[in-house]
Structures are given as structure tokens and as C-alpha cells.
């Protein structure tokens, strides 16, 4: 791997050439870095290796312009780039080497693809002459990542580098965002050419901004104006389009209750009077059952995931469906739209707002509040304010939410703790919920929280992680220490893979097959990475511990030992109609 001697000679310092007039005669590697700078990239998450060494060498001269964060595993780089993209609104950038470096990106690429996160991954590749020969650390990363990237390309000549990178950023960030991979062979990195950078804003076969059909908007408005029980579902597309205010304005104008998908959380403040809660398998009771009572369902920037619909044949079949969606492939994919508005959420909501008439639906909204009472009585109260038994995940989340006033960026992993945190954290500001939704990638939160913090250093970033998830990517504590990333890590430890155990209890006769965990001392592990921490097992200590964590400057790990065999309710059994939601 350490083959420094076979690298081309180090280019002369960049400052020297910066004065020369364009085009610059530089190596492909330097072109990569200059292209990234031209795209406004400030942060890269990456890990070097043989086939990407020339690019890392070129990076050496630009350390004052681009901050490279050395992760501990390439998967961590992808999740960090996702966290960065989701808080900063910029495209996350990842560097990795060929072969295993490239294959380690697969999980993060798939996650970013499912959750529409703009990301550009640049991988090194063996020299073009060696392609297809099973060379050392050669892998067909283009073939491997084809179904999990929005676009990918292999570049074998230096003169293709600027064009490929320009296209990559254009594709990643436009339309429905997604991950893009650019694979650059070592010879292309080493050879010199005349560099000139032009941003890409056009590809003739790609139409990222749909032409909105005004008639469809008028039809949608007509449906909404005639509705007795209208209901808005707010998805990730609202955040991606920056349409939170437009959505709230529409809801307020026509007095329409708004529920959120998992990835749509934080678009509407939890304390907004029209916000009725969170949808899905472990979402709130009212928003789920009311889906099957509304007469007009207005789905904005969401894709009717099976965790939201349950049994599709019994989902909102009484309602007229208005689907506002930028990706044409999502329209009519799962739920047939009576009116489809193929547009960016902001464009569509702005147009709708002018056509929708003021209305009141007090009785309909009151119905949500009454259903809330049932959830409150059967679930929420004893979850949030328990007085006996072991610590509850929900009370920990409640304390974090109170101490951060709902203003922290909440990064969650996957499982029971994710559902609990999403249910009980009281989001105030947009883009403060970072989680792995579509893919459900365990191990997402710790690296994603690093990127989230780098993307919004001014905000408190709290990662809520299960004991199982934490052990999938805990090596990133090394990155947190080395790069001094001040994230707050909360491990909700129930010594179980809790969600799987819950399903085993409910659907597999309590046969707890391979779900009980014998865990290490997490505080000691953090200590090994020079990160302070504390373990809490008693209810009496938890408030002080959360305070200590929040007031600590820099990274901190709080392990909370919670009730071992708690279940998340409400719950819609997989594949059942949402009306079969169980409160206990």
C-alpha cells in the first residue's frame, strides 16, 4: 500500500502556479482538487490508499483551502458526508481508494440513494492499462455501485476529470438529490493536461426541474378547497426544497393538519398548533388512523414507503390523493394519485398557496387531539414520566429535548431508540433530524453526527445510538478525537438488539435468537479515545448526567442503561393495514 516511490514527482507548490494564466498545465490529481475548490467544497471525508495516493498528494498543497477529515473506515466517510450534506445543505464529498476502499462505500451510497442525499464520492482506481486484469486492489466499482448511485462514471484520462466532476456535482445536487461516484484511474491522476474548469448546468437527457402543470395545481387546489377533512403529509422533499415555510403557510391558510414522515421530521416545529405528529409503523396514533379518515390527502415530497402505508390496499382508500413530488418515478408507484403535481415542493406549494381558499376544519383537527389523548394515556405518559422500574429511553430523550430546547441536531441510528427519539424529541428548527430512513443502516449515527457537527458547528449535535448500532462503527471515536468534533453521544443500552427482540417477542413466540448482547464498558472505550463520559443506571442521576453532557465543551459519551425488554408502541404490524395500529 505504501508505494510512495512509484508516485510521479510531487508537483511544484500550487501558489507558484496560481499566478499563471488559465489554462493550467497540471496533473489530473491537482485537477481533482482544483475542481472541488471550484465547486465550493470546503470539507472532504476520506481515507487514503494506493490508488488514490496521487490525489492525496495534490491535496497536501491545498490544506489551507480544503479541510480533509481522516475517518477510520470508508463507510464512516460516507455517513459523515451524509450528515454534513443534511445539515449544511451542501454536497458531501468522500475520498476512498480502489478495491476495499471503494467497496466499503457501498452501504453509505445505498443509504444516500434511498434518502436522497447529495454526495460525491471520488475513488482511486488501478491504472487504465490494468483494468479488467484482476490487478491488486482492482474492483469493478462502477458495476457494483450502478444500482445505488444516481450516476457514476469511470475516468481514464486526465482531460475528462473536470467535466466528470462538474457533472457529478450538478447531478448530485439537482432534482431529487442523490449520491454520485467518480472513479479515476491512477494514470489519469498522474498525467498532465491543460486544466480549465467549467461548471455544468445542463445535460440534454436529464431534466431535474420538471415543468409544472398549472392545470394539475388548479385541480389540486379545487380538491383542497372542497375538502372537509384535508390532511397534509410532509416528507423529506419539503426540507430538500427548503419549502418548510410554504408548507406551514398553506396549512395555516386552509387550516389543514400536518403529519410528518420520519425524514420529514423537523420541517414543521413539533409545537405548531397544526402539527399532529409522526407517521409510520411506530409513529403516533392519531396521524396513522386519521390517514384512513381524511377525504383529501396531500402528500408533499414523500414516496409512500411501506413503513408508512402498511397494507397498501387498505391505505387511504376513502381519500382523494394529491401527490406533490419531484421524482416522476415515485408518482403512482405505490399509491395512485388522483392529482399528481410533478414539481419541486417549493414551486408547487407556492403555486397552491395562491389558489387555496381560507377554511376552518376545527372539528376534524379536534379529532386528532382526541386520538392523541388515547396515546397519551396508554403510551406516552408512562414512557415520558415513569416513576418505577428501569430507565426508559423516552424519558432520556425527553430530558435531552428539554435541555437543548429542541434546537439541537438530533442524529439517530436504527432501531427502538431511533423510533423513540423520533417520537419524543421536540424539533424546533428545520434540518435538525438526521437519521437513516429508507435503508435503516445500523451504525449510521456516530459517523453521521460527525458530519452533522462539521456542517453546523454552531449547533449542538446529539447522537442517540443503541448499544448494537454503536458497535458497528465505534472506531469513528478515533476521528472524533483526532479532528476534535464536539458531538454528544448518548448510548441507550438495553443489552439487546431491541427492535429485533421486540419482533421476536410479538411475532416469534419470544424465541430470542441471537439478539441478547454482552457488551463492553462503553465509557472505558470512550476513555481509550480520550473522550470523557459517564454511565447512568439510576433515574436519580439521569437529569444531572444530561446536564453535564450538554454543558461539556467538546465530545462526550453518555451511556444510559435502560429497561432491558421494553417495547416501542404504538405499532402497526408489518404488512397490516394502518388502522390495525396497536397501542399496547
Amino acid at each position, binding site marked *: 500500500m505504501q508505494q510512495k516511490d512509484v508516485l510521479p514527482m510531487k508537483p511544484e507548490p500550487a501558489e507558484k502556479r496560481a499566478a499563471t494564466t488559465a489554462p493550467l498545465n497540471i496533473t489530473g490529481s491537482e485537477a481533482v482538487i482544483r475542481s472541488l475548490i471550484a465547486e465550493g467544497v470546503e470539507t472532504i471525508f476520506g481515507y487514503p490508499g494506493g490508488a488514490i495516493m496521487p490525489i492525496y498528494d495534490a491535496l497536501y498543497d491545498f490544506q489551507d483551502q480544503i479541510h480533509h477529515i481522516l475517518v477510520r473506515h470508508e463507510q464512516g466517510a460516507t455517513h459523515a458526508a451524509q450528515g454534513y450534506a443534511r445539515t449544511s445543505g451542501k454536497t458531501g464529498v468522500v475520498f476512498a481508494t480502489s478495491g476495499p476502499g471503494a467497496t466499503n462505500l457501498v452501504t453509505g451510497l445505498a443509504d444516500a440513494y434511498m434518502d436522497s442525499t447529495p454526495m460525491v464520492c471520488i475513488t482511486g482506481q488501478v491504472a487504465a492499462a490494468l483494468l479488467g486484469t484482476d490487478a491488486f486492489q482492482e474492483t469493478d466499482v*462502477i*458495476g457494483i455501485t*450502478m*444500482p445505488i448511485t*444516481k*450516476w457514476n*462514471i*469511470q475516468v481514464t*484520462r486526465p*482531460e*475528462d476529470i473536470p*467535466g*466528470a466532476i*462538474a*457533472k457529478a456535482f450538478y*447531478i448530485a445536487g439537482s432534482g431529487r438529490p442523490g449520491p454520485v461516484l467518480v472513479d479515476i484511474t491512477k494514470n489519469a491522476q498522474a498525467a498532465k493536461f491543460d486544466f480549465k474548469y*467549467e461548471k*455544468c448546468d*445542463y*445535460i*440534454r*437527457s*436529464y431534466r431535474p426541474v420538471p415543468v409544472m402543470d398549472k392545470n394539475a395545481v388548479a385541480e389540486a387546489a379545487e380538491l383542497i378547497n372542497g375538502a372537509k377533512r384535508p390532511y397534509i403529509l410532509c416528507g423529506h422533499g419539503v426540507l430538500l426544497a427548503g419549502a418548510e415555510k410554504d408548507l406551514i403557510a398553506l396549512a395555516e391558510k386552509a387550516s389543514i393538519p400536518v403529519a410528518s414522515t420520519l425524514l420529514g421530521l423537523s420541517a414543521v416545529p413539533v409545537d405548531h398548533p397544526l402539527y399532529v405528529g409522526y407517521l409510520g409503523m411506530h409513529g403516533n396514533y392519531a396521524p396513522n388512523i386519521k390517514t384512513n379518515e381524511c377525504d383529501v390527502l396531500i402528500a408533499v415530497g414523500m414516496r409512500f414507503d411501506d413503513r408508512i402505508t402498511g397494507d397498501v390496499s387498505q391505505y387511504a382508500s376513502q381519500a382523494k390523493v394529491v401527490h406533490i413530488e419531484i*421524482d*416522476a*418515478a415515485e*408518482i*403512482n*408507484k405505490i399509491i395512485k394519485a388522483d392529482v399528481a403535481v410533478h414539481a419541486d415542493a417549493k414551486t408547487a406549494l407556492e403555486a397552491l398557496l395562491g389558489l387555496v381558499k381560507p377554511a376552518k376544519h376545527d372539528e376534524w383537527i379536534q379529532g386528532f387531539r382526541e386520538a392523541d389523548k388515547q396515546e397519551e394515556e396508554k403510551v406516552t405518559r408512562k414512557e415520558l414520566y415513569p416513576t418505577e422500574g428501569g430507565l426508559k429511553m423516552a424519558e432520556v430523550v425527553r430530558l435531552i429535548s428539554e435541555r437543548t430546547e429542541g434546537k439541537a441536531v438530533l442524529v439517530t441510528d436504527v432501531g427502538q431508540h431511533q423510533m423513540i427519539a423520533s417520537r419524543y424529541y421536540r424539533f424546533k428548527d428545520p434540518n435538525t433530524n438526521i437519521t437513516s430512513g429508507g435503508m435503516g443502516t445500523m451504525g449510521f449515527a456516530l459517523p453521521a453526527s460527525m458530519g452533522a457537527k462539521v456542517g453546523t458547528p454552531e449547533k449542538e449535535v446529539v447522537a442517540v445510538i443503541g448499544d448494537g448500532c454503536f458497535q458497528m462503527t465505534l472506531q469513528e471515536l478515533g476521528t472524533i478525537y483526532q479532528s476534535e468534533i464536539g458531538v454528544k453521544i448518548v448510548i441507550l443500552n438495553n443489552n439487546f438488539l431491541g427492535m429485533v427482540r421486540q419482533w421476536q417477542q410479538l411475532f416469534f413466540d419470544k424465541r430470542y435468537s441471537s439478539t441478547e448482547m454482552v457488551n463492553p464498558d462503553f465509557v472505558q472505550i470512550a476513555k481509550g479515545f480520550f473522550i470523557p463520559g459517564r454511565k447512568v443506571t439510576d433515574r436519580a442521576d439521569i437529569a444531572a448526567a444530561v446536564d453535564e453532557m450538554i454543558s461539556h465543551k467538546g465530545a462526550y459519551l453518555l451511556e444510559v442503561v435502560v429497561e432491558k425488554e421494553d417495547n416501542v408502541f404504538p405499532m402497526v404490524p408489518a404488512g397490516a393495514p394502518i388502522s390495525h395500529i396497536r397501542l399496547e
Partner: protein
Amino acid sequence: MQKEYTVTVYTEDRIGITNRITVIFTRRGINITSLTTAETEIPGVYKFIITVLSEKTKLEKIVGQIERLIEIHRAFVHEEDEVVYQELALYKISTKALQNGNIEQLIRENNARILTLTDEYFVLEKTGHQQELIDLQAKLAPYGLIEYSKSGRVAIVKWSRRFHDHLKELSALRPDNLKEAQYGNAEVSAEEESI
């Protein structure tokens, strides 16, 4: 209900595009029964003609997912009566069979023609719909059929005028910023430069 459909896909000329398209069928467990691809009358725009046994609702969703790919212009799913189509088959038969008078009649009746003739074998060509080609194969079998090879489908869409006008407009546009670089054409034409 499952039946045979023709799917047409209009693409940019880019390495790996076949893979990108076929993998979308693979994900849903649909077997592609034939695939033909060639450049259209618009330079740089390729047309894929894919036949599959499936359901229309499923295929409409697949076509949506194909169109989502960056280098795809459009994709369509066609019922049988929306397209004029042909397939082509070649049949290699032992020359000895020509001594049997019936085979010449068979060739004539089926509008087949002899492409090449050697001492050892001759090759017949026939165009038509799949079933006709298969039927002829069965009829030729007793005469000592050595080899049979059938093409995928070529198809013309009956309502294609407006779309092809749109494609012609596209041809006036520069493909994209990688086009010349990737194919090593050093010169960019004056026409392209002006756009």
C-alpha cells in the same frame, strides 16, 4: 395479466447504459426475452427495443424508473398493436436437403431466401414475427437443420412522429460536457461551439 410487451428506450451513447437499464428489470425479477439496440436516425441517440413477458402496470413503473436514469431521454411501454415490428432468423441446413424437392417449396411458401450456399450447407433468411420464425424452424428440422439463430425485435412506433421531432430538436443540442473528451475528438465543431 402477463403478456408480451415491447419497451423502447431512447438513450445517450454511453458505456454501461445497457447494464443500467437491464438491472431495473432484474430487480423486479422480470426476464428480458429479447433486446436490440442501435443508433437512431439522430446521431448519438440510441434506441433499445426490449421485449418482456410481464404486466402493464408493472412495466409502467419500470419505465418510470428507467427514465429516472441520467442518460435516458425517454422510455415507453407498448402494446402489440402500437408497434410495427419484425424479427429475423437465420437457418443453416445441410445442402443435401436441397435434393429433396419439398424444401424449395417450403422456402418459397415462407418467403424465406437463400443467403449463401456451399457444398456442405446453405443459409436461409426469414423475417417475420417470432412465432412464424419458430414455426419455420420446426418445419425445417426434418431436413437436417444444423443451426438456428434469431434476432431480437426491431420496431417502429405508430405514434412516434412527435417524439421523433423532439429527438431531432435534441440533435441540434450539444450532447454534454464529456462527449468530445470521452471519445477523443479534439475538435469541437463550430456548430456545437455556438450552442
